[in-house]
């Protein structure tokens, strides 16, 4: 007989999983996201893990986290603070106390709350009794012991047995969120398809967690988050890295070009390489190069040979690729460079997010070397902007740098699956064999793109290279006026892209007291903060930029509609300084954060209100 519990409906809930980096936190997190998506919740996730693979157990430095925000209404961020915290050890509790709401539910693994673990977490007093947890709903569960009990009969080794304890937590949450446990069981059957010996053990632990929760006095009410009110269609949960890989695949298919990725593994971009190595059945080639430079150079070679050449990396790798990008600019070949930004400079904060590569993307090359620069702004729209980067690169025969970041790369959200048919057409400027008018540096009069003649084609033999080329013929030229002409032409070619991209949109009214300007991955937090202030009757709007260079043609017009402009970014002010150089007629305020973490909605609202308050006074 099931215990009678009160079911409380919630519009949104934020759950944070935290434990040692070997505790299976990321797995439990993605399992919970998948089941939430399956149940139709809108969601956004954010994994937060240390740079070390297995940092010292039980220490604050070793805490791995996974935050998920599920909602009945539209969810734009993984949430500022959690309603439910799962802390597998004292370090996980300590590291997350400031990230949970007052009165939150905290589930702890009692078996790890002992003197030894307190010492590792640098607790002086016992946090269970020193008042730290006063006002919270604490569920003290002997998770490790009970898990070991359950799996005894399966004869697993101690390490494997302990790894199943994340399923105990999952079981608890299935109860707490009033979910059908069968969905969790199905996930495990799929997940361990190749290791069937683990299926039964994991399912048993999942059930044990669920049954245990049912007996708990501490759980008087359970939550239910109803399916989201998204439009009809087919959806899936997707993260930014996978979305980029798939967007590139879609663009290659649309343009009837083979996709070639040349990359070197680097956090947090490696998953793009890994994802594309699995896409051989779609004729995609992913080449793991010997270094970052070989990655970009091989991609340029592949583009010369007719492929959509792509290289993916993070900030340090982008630095190494600079010379190669310059080569693609002067040879005027397609090249997509994906930079999944992380904290810098140097090795910096490899697993944390930041937006500090913007200046490098815009200007980080020798010579006059303009580049198209795009930025994606949600995990799912990484698909759209990877596609757009490939489209612009092929149609304009020039490199495109796409800026993503660690937050988008690993974060996931619900994505309405598009049909390839409905994506914009891509027309690379190809040439017919034996075209008598072909000259290597003849250009399309509209776009100024040169034509793409491909080795193997008859009657189009030609040479490209890094030396300055004579207009039209493409022969080596040291002529001073030719160099000036070609430099202007390459610059003009990029400027004309502005005619072939959408106008900038504004979220909110087109005139007002304050325009919040953001770019790339800060969208979710900025959108939510602005939306909330709008519903509080503030005169505030948001313009989130995806097209960085060139800027949309209506940018100045939008800016002129507001009394104040604040540019928010996760760096010391790179976009704002770019805007100051491009549109110096406006005055820009700044809102910067450089902690390796995304903006919080709450901190943004405080800042915006502060600006608006001063606005009223003035």
């Amino acid at each position, binding site marked *: 007989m099931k215990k009678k519990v009160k079911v409380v409906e919630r519009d949104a809930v934020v759950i944070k999983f935290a434990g040692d980096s070997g505790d299976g936190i990321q797995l439990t997190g993605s399992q919970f996201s998948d089941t939430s*998506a*399956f149940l*139709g919740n809108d969601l956004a996730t954010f994994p937060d893990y240390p740079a070390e693979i297995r940092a010292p157990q039980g220490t604050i430095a070793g805490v791995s986290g996974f935050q998920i925000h599920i909602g009945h209404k539209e969810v734009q961020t993984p949430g500022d603070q959690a309603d439910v915290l799962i802390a597998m050890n004292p370090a996980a509790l300590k590291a997350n106390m400031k990230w949970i709401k007052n009165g939150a539910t905290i589930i702890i693994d009692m078996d790890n709350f002992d003197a030894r673990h307190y010492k590792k977490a640098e607790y002086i007093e016992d946090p269970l009794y020193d008042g730290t947890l006063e006002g919270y709903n604490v569920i003290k569960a002997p998770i490790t012991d009970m898990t070991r009990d359950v799996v005894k009969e399966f004869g697993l080794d101690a390490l494997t047995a302990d790894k199943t304890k994340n399923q105990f937590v999952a079981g608890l949450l299935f109860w707490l969120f009033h979910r059908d446990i069968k969905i969790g069981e199905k996930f495990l059957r799929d997940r361990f398809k190749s290791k069937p010996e683990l299926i039964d053990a994991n399912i048993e632990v999942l059930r044990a967690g669920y049954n245990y929760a049912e007996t708990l006095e501490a759980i008087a009410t359970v939550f239910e988050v109803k*399916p*989201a009110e*998204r*439009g*009809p*269609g*087919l*959806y*899936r*949960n997707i993260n930014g890295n996978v979305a980029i890989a*798939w967007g590139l*695949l*879609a663009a290659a*298919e649309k343009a009837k070009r*083979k996709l*070639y990725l*040349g990359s070197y593994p680097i956090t947090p971009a490696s998953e793009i390489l890994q994802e594309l190595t699995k*896409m*051989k*059945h*779609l*004729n995609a*080639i992913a*080449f793991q*190069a*010997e270094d970052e*430079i*070989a990655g970009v*150079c*091989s991609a*340029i*070679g*592949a*583009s*010369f*040979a*007719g*492929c959509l050449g792509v290289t993916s990396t993070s900030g340090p790798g982008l630095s190494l690729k600079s010379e*190669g990008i310059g*080569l693609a600019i002067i*040879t005027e070949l397609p090249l997509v460079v994906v930079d999944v930004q992380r904290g810098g400079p140097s090795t910096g904060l490899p697993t944390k997010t930041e937006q500090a590569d913007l200046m490098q993307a815009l200007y980080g090359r020798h010579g006059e070397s303009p580049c198209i620069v795009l930025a994606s702004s949600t995990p799912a729209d990484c698909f759209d902007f990877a596609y757009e980067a490939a489209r612009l690169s092929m149609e304009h025969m020039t490199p495109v740098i796409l800026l993503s970041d660690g937050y988008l790369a690993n974060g996931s959200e619900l994505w309405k*699956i*598009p*049909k*390839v048919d409905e994506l914009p057409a891509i027309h690379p400027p190809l040439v017919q064999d034996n075209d008598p008018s072909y000259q290597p540096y003849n250009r399309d009069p509209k776009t100024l793109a040169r034509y793409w003649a491909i*080795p*193997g084609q*008859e*009657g*189009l*033999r030609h*040479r*490209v*290279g*890094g*030396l300055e080329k004579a207009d039209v013929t493409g022969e*080596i030229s040291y002529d001073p006026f030719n160099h000036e002409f070609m430099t202007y032409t390459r610059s003009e070619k990029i400027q004309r892209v502005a005619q072939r991209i959408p106008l900038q949109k504004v979220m909110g009214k087109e005139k007002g007291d304050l325009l919040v300007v953001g770019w790339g991955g800060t969208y979710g937090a900025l959108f939510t903060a602005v939306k909330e202030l709008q519903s509080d009757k503030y005169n505030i709007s948001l313009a989130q930029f995806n097209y960085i260079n060139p800027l949309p043609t209506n940018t100045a017009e939008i800016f002129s509609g507001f009394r104040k402009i604040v540019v928010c970014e996760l760096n010391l002010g790179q976009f704002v300084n770019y805007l100051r150089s491009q549109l110096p007629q406006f005055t820009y305020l700044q809102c910067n954060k450089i902690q390796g973490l995304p903006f919080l909605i709450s901190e943004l609202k405080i800042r915006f209100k502060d600006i608006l308050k001063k606005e009223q006074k003035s």
Partner: protein
Amino acid sequence: MTFEGNHCEISAQDFKMDKPARWCPGCGGHAVLAAVQRALPACGTKIENVVFVSGIGCSSRFPYYINTYGFHGLHGRGAAIATGIKIANPNLSVWLVTGDGDSMAIGGNHFIHLLRRNLDINILLFNNKIYGLTKGQYSPTTPKGTVTKSSPDGTIENPFLPGELAMGAQGTFFARVVDNNMDMMMDVFTQAAQHKGTSLVEVLQNCVIFNDDIHIEIADKNLREENQLYLEHGKPMLFGKDRKKGIIQTGGKFYIVKIGENGVRQEDILIHDAYKYDDTRHYMLARMILPDYPAAMGVIRCTDSTIYEDALYNQIEHARHKSLIKSVDDLLTSGNTFRMG
């Protein structure tokens, strides 16, 4: 060589450009270019399928001087560009022209990885043991002690032997030619083109301006018979004016002997086996240097091994055959999806 079908016969002339090559008069590059243009028609590749790729340096201007598809790349990165081209389209005949600075120094990493992967690319390594285009600094192959613009007191670095690097990187084809022997170059370039896998041909090239006569003891017409051991697969390792000198091996070491002296007979002389997979003897041959030994010339090593692009395209074919996902639409709707509304 004639081509079947609609292709008319191509000759060296078809590979020539209207304008002359801009190398110094007397530069070894001119002869190498002529040898390549004369060897290519015999290689049996359609002219539009030939691609010349290079890095930076005097030798790397090569693609501008030959009438094929060409890519003049970045310093040291020619190997990486060529790799991308070959993987993108394995039907292309890809040639990488590079120098001792370009591929032994700044491009050393790409060079060894190209050999290790064994893509079917032909490398012509112009080794003049000096930086020419930057006007006379020492290179990684410059003999120790040499005074150059950047080593006024003599270099204090040990030079690379390209053959040693090639063997260390598991290269499957290594040959050495000298720029004043047209027949040798044409013969070896043809064999390099026919070899399936990465072929490295070290061209001992003269730089008339900054390192004149650096290879004179090997190249000189009066010395070459004594100082060059021209290797041919299946033939004895004989050299010298009357071809009476030969190589024998005792223990782990080569010795120079003379047929007829100390009871040495013709059949005692080592027979060159270029095809052997074990590279021990190829390595010893590549390391022979004057004055103790003659310089080994011709094809030193030519052995079969898995070719990168073959293995890759086999995996692709297998995946395409096996997978039910045939398009991006299939991919997007595969796995965990949820219908709403």
